[in-house]
């Protein structure tokens, strides 16, 4: 035995890992080329992807943007496979707006932009009130400028001044200062949700035009219902007041609203040019149907889901019957009912707007699915949550609003957004009943002698448009899930 031994007296310095295990090379050798099978698969997949992409690009990159018709395209590509993009240049407006009058395109665009401004306070909690009002005023100013006329310009100036004022305030005070001011009791701007509530009345008026009094009388119906409930609740009890809150607006819309609007319009005629439903088409039609159906189906779905769990027999039976009936019938059947059967029942000459009929059917259809998705969320809540709400002494609606629904809806987000996406894509079914949504229009465009025989270019563009909307909805739902995640993972 000798005393010789080796003890390292200091740590070795860290060394960089071998070049073959880091970076791109390392990642590839670990994930793509670790073994013969995987290497082969990698090479085959890469070859396939290259082949597919090259094939697609070879078709898609084609200098045919300026072509005036299919013959031009065929001359330009001269025998090769190549897309004919001239059709998109010629018809992109139609694919977006249908036959909506070109000089009025600003109206759908304005409603589309306003839609996002109305949605921001509902969907995101990321921008300040002042930012929201600034955007709203600025957009409205641009819109008012489009209306033209002395009134429009005057309105635009006032709105622009408002936007400038809010914008100035916003840049001159920083976030922290503002937070202090608010804590100290400074006056805040009103909640932008006010505009979100008004938006459902403004957007249809912008799209269809007509008298300014129409959205007013529609809104008045809700005000009347609310007033009836508040005024009579003490006299005839809550149930009676709730019933009145439904009956009064319906009576108002049915019998008094049209006359009132006429009289008001006679006294003070204000309005914008009316546009007929028939002129709606393309993405505008899909979005109109989709957005309305989506936004109405969620509340109806919640009510139906609650009704289905209710202890009241009649309410439960009605909800179950409705849900099961609608889910048992294909959407296309409902659309045929809307387009053909209703025509036969109604007195001849009655003009019940076809888009409105379709929207009603699509909404009912989505509501039934929505109800089941939300019921799934309700069923996933532990019984303790209901009991806790009871123990706190909350009544039914308060318990739903404060405890049950926030949790149930959070659980249901993926399902709800799936239903939305499905509904939005289902709007293309309306082409079967002769409405010209993007798919229907592709057929109509192809019927023009310039473009007979064009298929894939139109389908590719339509697919892209739908993808943009559906993919954004899907990403938003993932963002929302992350933001609402309260458990600790």
């Amino acid at each position, binding site marked *: 035995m000798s005393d010789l031994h080796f003890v390292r007296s200091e740590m070795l310095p860290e060394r960089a890992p071998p070049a073959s295990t880091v970076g791109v090379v390392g990642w590839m050798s670990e994930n793509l080329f670790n073994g013969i099978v995987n290497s082969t698969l990698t090479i085959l997949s890469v070859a396939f992807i290259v082949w597919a992409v090259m094939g697609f690009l070879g078709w898609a990159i084609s200098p045919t943007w300026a072509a005036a*018709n299919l*013959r031009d395209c*065929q001359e330009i590509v001269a*025998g090769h496979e190549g897309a004919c993009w001239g059709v998109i240049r*010629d*018809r992109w*407006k*139609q694919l977006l707006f*249908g*036959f909506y009058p070109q000089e009025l395109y600003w109206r759908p665009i304005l409603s589309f932009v306003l839609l996002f401004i109305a949605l921001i306070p509902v969907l995101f909690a990321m921008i300040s009130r002042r930012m929201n009002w600034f955007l709203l005023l600025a957009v409205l100013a641009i819109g008012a400028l489009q209306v033209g006329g002395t009134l429009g310009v005057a309105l635009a100036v006032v709105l622009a001044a408002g936007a400038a004022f809010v914008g100035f305030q916003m840049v001159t005070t920083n976030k922290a200062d503002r937070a202090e001011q608010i804590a100290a009791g400074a006056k805040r701007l009103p909640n932008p949700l006010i505009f979100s509530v008004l938006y459902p009345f403004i957007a249809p008026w912008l799209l269809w035009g007509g008298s300014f009094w129409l959205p007013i009388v529609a809104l008045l119906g809700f005000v009347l219902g609310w007033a009836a409930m508040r005024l009579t609740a003490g006299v005839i009890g809550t149930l009676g007041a709730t019933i009145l809150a439904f009956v009064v607006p*319906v009576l108002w*819309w*049915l*019998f008094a609203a*049209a006359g009132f609007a006429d009289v008001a319009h006679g006294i003070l005629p204000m309005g914008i040019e009316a546009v*007929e439903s*028939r*002129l709606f088409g393309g993405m505008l039609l899909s979005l109109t149907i989709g957005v309305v159906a989506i936004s109405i189906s969620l509340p109806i779905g919640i009510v139906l889901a609650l009704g289905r769990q209710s202890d009241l027999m009649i309410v439960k039976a009605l909800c179950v019957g409705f849900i099961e*009936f609608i889910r048992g*019938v294909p959407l296309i*059947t*409902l659309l*045929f*009912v*809307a*387009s*053909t*059967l*209703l*025509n*036969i*029942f*109604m*007195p*001849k*000459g*009655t*003009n*019940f*707007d076809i888009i409105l*009929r379709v929207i*009603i059917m699509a909404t*009912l259809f989505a509501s039934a699915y929505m109800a089941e998705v939300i019921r799934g969320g309700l069923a996933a809540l532990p019984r303790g949550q209901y009991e806790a709400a009871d123990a706190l002494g909350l009544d039914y609606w308060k318990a739903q609003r404060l405890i049950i629904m926030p949790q149930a809806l959070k659980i249901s987000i993926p399902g709800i957004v799936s239903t939305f996406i499905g509904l939005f894509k289902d709007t293309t079914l309306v*082409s*079967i*009943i*002769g409405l*010209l949504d993007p*798919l*229907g229009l592709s*057929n*109509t*465009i*192809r*019927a*023009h*002698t*310039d473009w*007979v*025989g064009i298929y894939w270019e139109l389908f590719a563009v339509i697919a892209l448009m739908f993808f943009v909307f559906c993919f954004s909805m899907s990403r938003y739902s993932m963002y929302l899930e992350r933001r609402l995640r309260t458990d600790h993972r």
Partner: protein
Amino acid sequence: MIAPKLMHADEGQPPSLKSSRPQEPEENARNRAENQEEVIMKKTVFLGALTVAGLAAGASAAATLDDVKARGKLNCGVATGVPGFAAPDANGRWEGFDVSVCRAVAAAVLGDSDAVEFVPTTGKTRFTALSSGEIDMLARNTTWTLSRDVDLKFTFVGVNYYDGQGFMVPKDLGVSSAKELDGATVCIQTGTTTELNLAEFFRANNMSYEPVPIETQAEALQQYNAGACDVYTTDASGLAAARSTFEDPTSSVILPEIISKEPLGPLVRHGDNEWGDIVRWTLNALIAAEEFGITSTNIGELSAAAGDNPEVNRLLGTEGNLGEMLGLDAGWAKAAIMSGGNYGEVFEKNIGENTPIGLARGLNAQWRDGGLIYSPPFR
């Protein structure tokens, strides 16, 4: 997915549905199915319907002419898109052979060929749209059949295009007659009358064929161009339109045999004969104008004063009171002809030999030229 059934007059009729009502079996079957839902659905949509019904003017359908005049617009049902017959251009203005009939009627009744609301209808919605009063007339290459006239209660006011089913084959096949097609593979749209006609034609000629069932025209042309079938069959006008889209249209030939009768024409509802007369005689005015050599260029001159030909004078309102009899102005036919020219001009402009569709007049020539186009006298 909705796919184009380009040019086919009778889309939507399944081949062999034995029904007590022989025509429109598919439509009937669907209506029966919907009738069962209707009871439940009716309630749901009733409130919504009421809301708008209350706002809309409930007009009676008896006097269509009065309705049209009061509205200031003619509601005319057209196809959602059939090349050469009905299609909107990039500005949304509808053009085509069927569209011209709508424009002529609007011009005759309202004096303005643009006073038309074109209502796009599909093969499935066209008849309900007409019978419910949503449209005043339908000009959507619809075949005139007995059951449509009698059972569906429509009046076909005439024929503006005589179509028929034909065959298209690649030139390389070296076939010059449909009788030589024994044993061929045939691309055929399923669920149409063309399928029935095809079977009958081959049976009658004691030949056999192998059907390649396809759903849409797009699919059919792809199969045909890929050589998956030797023959493509649909209405002759559809074949011509399809062939015009080929990169080399001369590589295919359309065989001379026409194996079915498809008289296509505008139609109106039963129950308002005066309105039917107006549409009928507007169409006849276009046809007669060609016969008498009245064109959109010389009509101004001819209608300025009464000329030598009394029938031209009566037609153009410089003599007699034909317009008054119809309940229109004396210049009704002049306006109709000026809206797009006479029958021949409309034909040449939309589907004639100088257009990409490239149809010859054939059966649709004037009777004096050996065709079937013939107008009763204006007397």
